[in-house]
């Protein structure tokens, strides 16, 4: 115990100040306005007249240490060693010298990192672990993200969209990618009830917690082959996997039935309209690695439908809100199905309670 006492703990992260370039320290809180000079390049102008240039480059988020060292080399070469990452996992280089912009852009391109994701564009996809690291995954994360962004890279590199479009991916309903408020969300889903391993439940899981974990009360304690275990009422199960989270003996993953669903129209910012949740667009697309062509195609279709019909500044959900979901379904050709109808707690409030309809 003496060891533990002496050990330095709870010292927290390093103070951010030591990582700020001098121009930021001097102009902290004094920025006046910014301008996007071209896709992926912006300048912030201070009340003091100082200018800070930012170059944003795409990142796969899953990066090896040698790649980080590449970033460091570029930061040393052009930015006095200063760089940052964004809340959507892109890497940003902070420059004070205008003349360094083009050479850095060129070097980044050489490294295979497109420049963009600013303004009215599609920036990198917020995503999760998938088959790379998580036990819960109903699909892979990085593979779909790579495929979708390959397909949409023009929209990362230009600013021709009506507004920002945010895509997110989560590989299971835990939604670590927080896809619940995205313009387009790709969500890994299971579609069959857990297959309980009754020989392991008693040993590995706390039976009352398992029963309590189910949002639809589909699980009850049961004795199976003389063993204390649980029973799943299959008709009540909507495959959320919360039981698996608390009990490893109830695996959900299943190659035949796992896949993704696509959700749209959510947003986070308070700009114009209030933040809102994403809504179900496509209930199910089977996993089709390595490039999930049906998913990339569906996403592109949605992006293009929005891009060619929305008004300026209208986010995906704002556009659909204006025209109404029935019209969206007609325009997109997506078939409206029973799955689209909410049947969880607040379902009644999602029914159409007016005659405001288009024909």
């Amino acid at each position, binding site marked *: 115990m003496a060891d533990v006492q002496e050990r330095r703990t709870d010292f927290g992260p390093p103070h951010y100040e030591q990582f700020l370039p001098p121009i930021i320290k001097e102009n902290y809180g004094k920025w006046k306005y910014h301008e996007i000079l071209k896709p992926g390049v912006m300048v912030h102008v201070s009340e003091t007249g100082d200018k800070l240039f930012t170059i944003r480059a795409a990142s796969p988020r899953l990066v090896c240490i040698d790649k980080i060292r590449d970033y460091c080399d570029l930061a040393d070469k052009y930015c006095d060693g200063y760089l940052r990452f964004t809340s959507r996992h892109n890497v940003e280089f902070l420059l004070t010298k205008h003349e360094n912009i083009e050479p850095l852009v060129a070097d980044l391109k050489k490294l295979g990192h497109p420049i963009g994701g600013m303004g009215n564009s599609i920036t990198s996809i917020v995503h999760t672990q998938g088959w790379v690291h998580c036990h819960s995954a109903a699909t892979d994360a990085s593979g779909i993200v790579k495929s979708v962004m390959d397909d949409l890279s023009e929209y990362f590199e230009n600013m021709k969209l009506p507004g920002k479009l945010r895509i997110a991916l989560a590989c299971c309903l835990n939604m670590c990618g927080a896809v619940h408020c995205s313009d387009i969300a790709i969500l890994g889903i299971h579609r069959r009830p857990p297959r309980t391993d009754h020989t392991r439940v008693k040993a590995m899981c706390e039976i009352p917690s398992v029963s309590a974990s189910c949002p639809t009360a589909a699980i009850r304690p049961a004795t199976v082959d003389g063993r204390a275990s649980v029973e799943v009422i299959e008709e009540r199960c909507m495959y959320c996997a919360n039981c698996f989270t608390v009990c490893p003996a109830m695996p959900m993953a299943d190659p035949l039935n796992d896949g993704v669903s696509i959700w749209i129209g959510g947003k986070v910012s308070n700009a114009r309209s209030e933040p809102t949740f994403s809504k179900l667009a496509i209930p199910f697309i089977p996993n089709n690695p390595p490039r999930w062509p049906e998913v990339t195609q569906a996403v592109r279709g949605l992006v293009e439908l929005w891009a060619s019909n929305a008004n300026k500044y209208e986010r995906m959900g704002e556009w659909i809100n204006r025209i109404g979901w029935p019209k969206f379904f007609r325009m997109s050709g997506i078939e409206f199905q029973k799955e689209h109808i909410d049947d*969880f707690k607040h379902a009644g409030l999602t029914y159409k309670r*007016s*005659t405001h309809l288009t024909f």
Partner: protein
Amino acid sequence: MADLPKTPLLDELESGPFPSFVSEIKRAAEKNDMSKDLLGQLEQSYREKIGHWKHGGIVGVMGYGGGVIGRYSDLPKEWPNISHFHTMRINHPSGWFYTSKSLREICNIWEKHGSGLTNMHGSTGDIILLGTTTDHLEPVFEELGKIDFDIGGSGSDLRTPSCCCGQARCEWACYDTMALTYDLTMHYQDELHRPAFPYKFKFKMSGCPNDCVASIARSDMSIIGTWRDSIQIDQDAVREYADKGMDIRSDVIGNCPAKCMDFDGKELHIENSYCVRCMHCINVMPKALRPGKDKGATVLLGSKAPIVEGAMLSSVLIPFWKLEPPYSDLKEIVDNIWDVWCEDGKARERVGEFIQRVGLGNFLDAIGLEPVAEMVAHPRENPYVFYEDYFEEGDEEEEEKG
């Protein structure tokens, strides 16, 4: 007849510009003892700040299970003439149109057999004959029958359907509300008179989305007129409104929820495929704009007052139907709904509550209707989807299993 009871509190409600219910009761009380005692008991309620009616028992006319609300005073000694004071609900004619002749006949019957007080009308729409005793119920029924007035609904039955005046007096009615109301009322006489549902069921018909009978808020099935094609525009009349000083951009276009209108100073343009048929532009320019020509109605389901699961508004079941006699498509869906609700509904569970309990998707399956996007304001936000089928290992050709 004895003097009227002293009513210093109620008397205060006889002054003022609006017609006074106290004066009405007094006028009736001049020649009717029930009304006289009602006046007395009401004064006592005003003094004590509490009602003096007891929970009603079941009373009615022979062969009918509803239409009469039993009512008893809890002060029968003080007010013996209203110790029994039942209400009769009489099915009004569609649209509440009358001739003076028919009204006088009703008055005569009620003079003979009741308190002489009425509600014209009750909030469901019935003629309310307010206050009589059990022994008078059957005679009233008999005499009303002679002038073709039948009893309305109460209890767990179909309630008296009602409607706006529709095509009788309104240029916007998109279907014949009065005809449909009459037809449904006649077709469902048994359901109206013999409670056999889990709870009450109300129909209200409005001719257009202005919904002048509050159908979307107050009926289990709300039938609201609308149109599918383009709003009819008389451009000359539009310009006339503009010339007379209407600010078309802010008053009309600025209030269009679909933001689908445009006015260049000369022509009004409406992008009809975006129009949500809200009526606003038509309401403010009735001489220039009219609903389209391809008319019909939206059928909605489920509204009700708060008890038990919270108030509900009706929601879309059929986005558009032409609704022409004999209305067989509508009756078929109504029959299916009642079958399912009677089979699986709990006691005192309105159809709106029932749908929310079983889920709209399952309800549609049960009544045999395909889901359409018009039924929802938006698709689900939660990922708790009950996918209907999954594959089993070894399924040939990846067929889906139930």
